[in-house]
């Protein structure tokens, strides 16, 4: 996956090193995902439309983490925090203050993004495993806040009775299908912007930092600033997902930002394929599917999930998206 030349900021789009064999595989993934996400809801029952909505929202979230984890090489174990905080902002604004739809959306995005802008100042000079740890600690602190700041967050019970999207936004179409397609539009917009970002010279610099920060520094790049911006961008897109999640579920609770949520997110990205954007979408889809389908058949689904993880990593250490002979390490 080393691509030092591209990292130097050339206009050439990064050609992922493996060329021939994974191409068919990837085409299949994209086709299946595209088909399911675009036409699936028209065929499926409302429950499955709901699951698809979840997949799409979590896909935005996983992609946002991928900017940080995959492209910049900063592994965050506290990324669910922004997601959760944005959702809380929507919950508080909508229920306590009776705010309108756009105020809630703007509020959620603003709070989540501002938070990442502030925390970014603390974490952006930390690297590798220490980055993992500091984000984990920040995540725990924010979880504690959501649990303890009862007058605002409602404590362990959280905030329920957030109005539905249709009711709140005055959308002429109600129901799961409308919610799904609105979410899908948001997803497409976010995915588009994120794809532009990672392909831009800025995105290439991020990869350069991931591969060799010292070299980027000596070339005159302000690597701190790049890491900081990457963190804030990731936080902003996580907030988008958080706002969508608040409307999808209609409630907010501390579990949105706990360690379990952050690690699950981490797995979505790494299983799907870090530094690919499509990978996290695949990861989010697969995990939502696995959890919900498997648990109907066995109470031991968590055990199965663990085995699936282990096997996947053995077979595809760089993620399912990068599956193929040259994608394997060793």
């Amino acid at each position: 996956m080393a691509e030092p030349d591209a990292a130097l900021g050339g206009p050439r789009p990064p050609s992922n090193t493996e060329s021939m064999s994974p191409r068919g595989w990837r085409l299949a993934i994209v086709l299946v995902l595209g088909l399911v996400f675009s036409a699936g809801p028209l065929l499926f029952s409302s429950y499955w439309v709901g699951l698809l909505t979840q997949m799409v929202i979590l896909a935005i979230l996983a992609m946002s983490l991928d900017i940080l984890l995959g492209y910049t090489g900063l592994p965050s174990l506290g990324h669910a925090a922004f997601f959760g905080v944005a959702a809380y902002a929507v919950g508080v604004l909508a229920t306590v203050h009776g705010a309108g739809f756009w105020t809630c959306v703007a509020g959620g995005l603003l709070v989540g993004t501002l938070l990442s802008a502030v925390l970014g100042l603390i974490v952006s000079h930390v690297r590798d495993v220490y980055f993992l740890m500091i984000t984990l600690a920040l995540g725990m602190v924010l979880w504690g806040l959501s649990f303890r700041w009862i007058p605002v967050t409602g404590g362990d019970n959280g905030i329920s009775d957030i109005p539905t999207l249709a009711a709140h936004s005055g959308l002429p179409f109600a129901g799961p299908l409308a919610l799904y397609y609105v979410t899908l539009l948001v997803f497409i917009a976010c995915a588009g912007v994120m794809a532009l970002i990672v392909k831009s010279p800025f995105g290439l610099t991020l990869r350069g930092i991931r591969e060799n920060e010292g070299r980027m520094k000596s070339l005159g790049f302000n690597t701190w600033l790049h890491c900081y911006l990457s963190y804030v961008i990731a936080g902003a897109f996580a907030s988008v997902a958080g706002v969508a999640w608040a409307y999808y579920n209609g409630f907010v609770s501390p579990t949105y930002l706990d360690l379990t949520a952050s690690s699950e997110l981490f797995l979505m990205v790494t299983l799907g394929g870090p530094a690919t954007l499509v990978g996290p979408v695949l990861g989010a889809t697969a995990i939502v599917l696995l959890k919900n389908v498997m648990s109907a058949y066995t109470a031991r689904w968590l055990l199965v999930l663990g085995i699936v993880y282990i096997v996947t990593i053995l077979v595809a250490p760089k993620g399912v998206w990068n599956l193929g002979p040259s994608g394997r390490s060793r």
Partner: protein
Amino acid sequence: MTYLITQTLNGLFSAALLFLIASGLTLAFGVMRIVNIAHGSFYMLGVYVAYSVVLRTGSLLLGALAAIVVVGSLGFVMQRFFLRRFGSDPLAQMMMTMGFALLFRDGALMIWGGDAFTLQYPPGLSGSMEAGEVVFPLYRLFVIFVAGLVGVALWLVNEKTLIGARLRATVDDPEMASATGINVALLSGLVFAAGAGLAAFGGVMGGPILGGYAGIDFDLLPLAFVVVIVGGMGSLKGAVAGSVVVGMIDNFGKALVPELSYFTLFAPMVLVLAIRPRGLYGRA
């Protein structure tokens, strides 16, 4: 004064337990750069295995031995067959340990059920000691003492033996160590196994007070991380310092500012990392 003594002893007890968990974590990191998400699971499996053995034999000592051997072997197998192959890829290793953490968590639920339990006290250590106004449980003093012994033993191994010398060489520079004929792969496996065994032993030591329950793995893992980070990853000395600092902050924090008890542990860790990005004793 009484209060101060009691809380300080409490802090030392927390530190002792944390040290038993965190020393293995920090050693594994030092040698292999592995962030082991399954390390809390080793603690949990330790107390569960001991519980099963105690139920059948009635002997806590046998339970402790079984826990160390079983979990240590598990750690060795895990390192040898699942982690070693990703030697140069810390992310893949970490994901692998995440997968194992899930596996262990649900496996334990399947085997032992989800009921919480506590282990019995070792004979003669169940009461409390009274000195003037200070009442302090005997068993906690015992844990502090044992952790101290373990610390000294680890230090001796590390400083005075050939294995220790190889270990230090590997921590400093794995490639150079390998070039000088040290079997880094085997050494890594042994260190990982020892870390797992230590965590399992920690589980047994904590068993009479904290017991075992579904979820203890992820309850303790972040604490162990805090210790290791505050102390500096890979440093045994750091693990000692980190345990004491964290144990004290945790106890006095909860006692003095209960309102902030969700933050007293993690906020200092954030501060340490923000100011010293590699922890107090950490090396590049």
